[in-house]
């Protein structure tokens, strides 16, 4: 089948110049949906204070115009908006086909500008929400936030109310609006997942690279350390975290991160071992590159592909284990709304108020499904073999009439 490979090479060359017209992947519609979901979740979390807050955006009261919503902003809101701009930047750069193009240059500069603005804002704003002196539903015309409830606003007459026009997703057992709690909860869940994935990936990459590349005694010792951590079920980390720094964000992130890094380390080690003997690595060594440089410039970039995929699965796993931790009484304090926590609090009411657990569960599923498909898209994008010739023609069996004979 040599000439099939030739055709691929020719097409590859053509695609590099002109860029493939449309990505032909059997799952492209799913991947597209996944990207949209990821966008909406991150947008909603970033602008949580804008979207779900009882403080209206604008209030015109006998001539005086006020922006109560902006006054409730705290440092975290600004930091999140900065993160949003970074996400949009990355999304535009990766998403579109042609890297150049004037429209893109303006967008990048604009976003970079906004990013700096929000960074500055982060230092100006207080780090704790100022007292809500002003009564919320004052008279005068005011533009309400789309979801006019704070995450911890208890609605006296709507306890365990099923989804209605007033509360789109219903309320929980303490009468708090579920949709606003999910939006604000998204923030913490994403933060927990992101930080623990960061820990897991950084440790995993470091460990895996060093173990795989240098081998010999170093590999022997570090593998033992890795095994120690692997034999350490999450349970035993409970000892340290359970009493020492319970219920804090750092504790939850540490626990999830310190367990997840071992699988990434093993993956990276295997990749590095495989890549180490490739010709171009030997060539780099032959050219006199110091071994550290070879590792960083040549070997690691290649293992980034599978690591990214593993990282996306670790991200999804972190969001789930955050819920399981709250089951063991070790998650974040009961007040902080995260998806896992809301899911856990609603578990008792599964048979008489199922929406309390159903919607966070659905949201968790959508987030994890989108992360999974983005991860899969990454893997296929980074794996050269399936890139140009559409994987639709990836080797699959022609099954006549649906039966494998």
């Amino acid at each position, binding site marked *: 089948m040599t000439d099939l490979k030739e055709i691929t090479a020719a097409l590859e060359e053509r695609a590099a110049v002109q860029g493939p017209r449309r990505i032909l992947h059997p799952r492209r519609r799913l991947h597209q949906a996944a990207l949209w979901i990821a966008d909406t979740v991150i947008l909603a979390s970033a602008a949580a204070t804008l979207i779900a807050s009882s403080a209206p955006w604008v209030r015109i009261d006998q001539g005086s115009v006020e922006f109560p919503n902006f006054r409730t902003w705290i440092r975290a809101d600004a930091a999140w908006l900065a993160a949003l701009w970074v996400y949009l930047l990355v999304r535009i750069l990766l998403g579109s086909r042609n890297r150049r193009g004037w429209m893109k240059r303006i967008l990048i500069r604009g976003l970079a500008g906004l990013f700096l603005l929000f960074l500055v804002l982060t230092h100006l704003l207080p780090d704790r929400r100022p007292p809500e002196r002003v009564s919320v539903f004052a008279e005068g015309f005011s533009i309400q936030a789309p979801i006019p409830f704070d995450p911890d606003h208890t609605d006296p007459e709507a306890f365990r109310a099923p989804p209605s026009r007033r509360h789109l997703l219903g309320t929980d057992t303490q009468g708090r609006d579920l949709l606003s709690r999910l939006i604000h909860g998204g923030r913490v869940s994403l933060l927990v997942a992101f930080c623990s994935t960061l820990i897991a990936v950084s440790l995993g990459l470091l460990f895996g690279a060093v173990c795989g590349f240098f081998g010999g005694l170093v590999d022997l010792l570090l593998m033992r350390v890795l095994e120690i951590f692997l034999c350490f*079920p999450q349970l*035993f980390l409970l000892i340290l975290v359970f009493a020492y720094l319970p219920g804090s964000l750092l504790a939850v992130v540490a626990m999830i991160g310190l367990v997840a890094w071992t699988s990434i380390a093993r993956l990276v080690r295997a990749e590095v071992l495989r890549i180490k003997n490739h010709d171009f690595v030997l060539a780099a060594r032959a050219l006199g590159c110091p071994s550290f440089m070879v590792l960083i410039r040549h070997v690691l970039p290649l293992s980034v592909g599978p690591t990214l995929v593993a990282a996306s699965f670790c991200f999804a796993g972190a969001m789930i284990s955050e819920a399981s931790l709250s089951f063991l009484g070790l998650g974040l304090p009961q007040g902080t709304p995260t998806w896992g926590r809301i899911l856990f609090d609603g578990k008792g009411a*599964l048979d008489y108020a199922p929406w309390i657990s159903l919607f966070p569960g659905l949201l968790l599923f959508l987030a994890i499904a989108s992360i999974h498909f983005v991860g899969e898209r990454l893997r296929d994008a980074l794996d050269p073999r399936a890139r140009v010739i559409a994987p639709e023609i990836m080797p699959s069996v022609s099954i006549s009439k649906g039966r494998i004979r």
Partner: protein
Amino acid sequence: MRTYLLKRLLFCVPTLLGITLVTFALSRMVPGGPLSQRLALLHEEGIEVGDEEIARYRDLLALDRPLLHQYGTWLRQSTTLDFGRSQSGDNLPVRTKIGEALAVSLGLQLVSILFIYVLSIPVGCYGAVCYGRWHERWVTLGLLLLYSIPVFVLAYLLIVLLCTGQVLSILPLHGLRTIDRQGFTWLDHAADIARHLVLPVICLSAAGFTAMTRYMRAGMVEALALDFVRTARAKGLRERTVIFKHALAHGIVPVLALLAGLFPYLLSGSVIVENIFGIPGMGRLAFDSVQSRDYPTLMALSLIIGIATMAGFLVSDLLQAAFDPRVRLR
């Protein structure tokens, strides 16, 4: 082969030492201890304990001897499998406590591992063979739904649906066996345990099953693209043989490597399942000894979980060597 096993055993020793040392350090570094745990319980009961009784009780528990000395004595005793007595109040020898829990948990975990592998291989193959077809897409979405449901929500859903009689009442809810089982033949015993194990095994292995299926499918997709599959087809073998003999034999190797990661994963997962379904297994024992700061049980548990995981590693390596002749055990 024997030299390889010897080498592996030799490597286990530093790791096991490391695990027990880390557990020892962790448990001692954390504030509180068996004494403060007991005083808290007494406070809860409204009983006040004078200072001299506390002092006398502390030296009975021998907590204040130098740490390294304590670790040394523990190590010496553990070589003779005498792990001392549990400090969580029931003062049972740790050996019997862990023995009981291990028997229950090992059964549950092995059945789960079997369940995971038996199911994930065919579903993985199906996913690879029909990659991209619409029904495979719905199956993948379904698997993702299963993966993204936390264990306890899945457990409660199944309980509300199958146990409490609001919808159905076909499966038992609590414990490993029905309590009054006089006059049971061994068949009834087996059936009884099986009925009790259905829900815990499903909850325990749900996430593991979906993860394993994903790896299996990735392995199979890669295997199906290799040249020898084309040769097999050119030889005119049946499609079934091509997939389940040639492609599977090559695609299953990475999945076997995951066996090693399953043991610790199942243990921490079983904490939740054992709590919900009332199964007195290793997960629950580990969680209780963590909460009641029961040092001897914790140390013994860390050793045994370490050994179990090492065994997991060894078994997965041997399986890999058995399946793939290119892997030489050196």
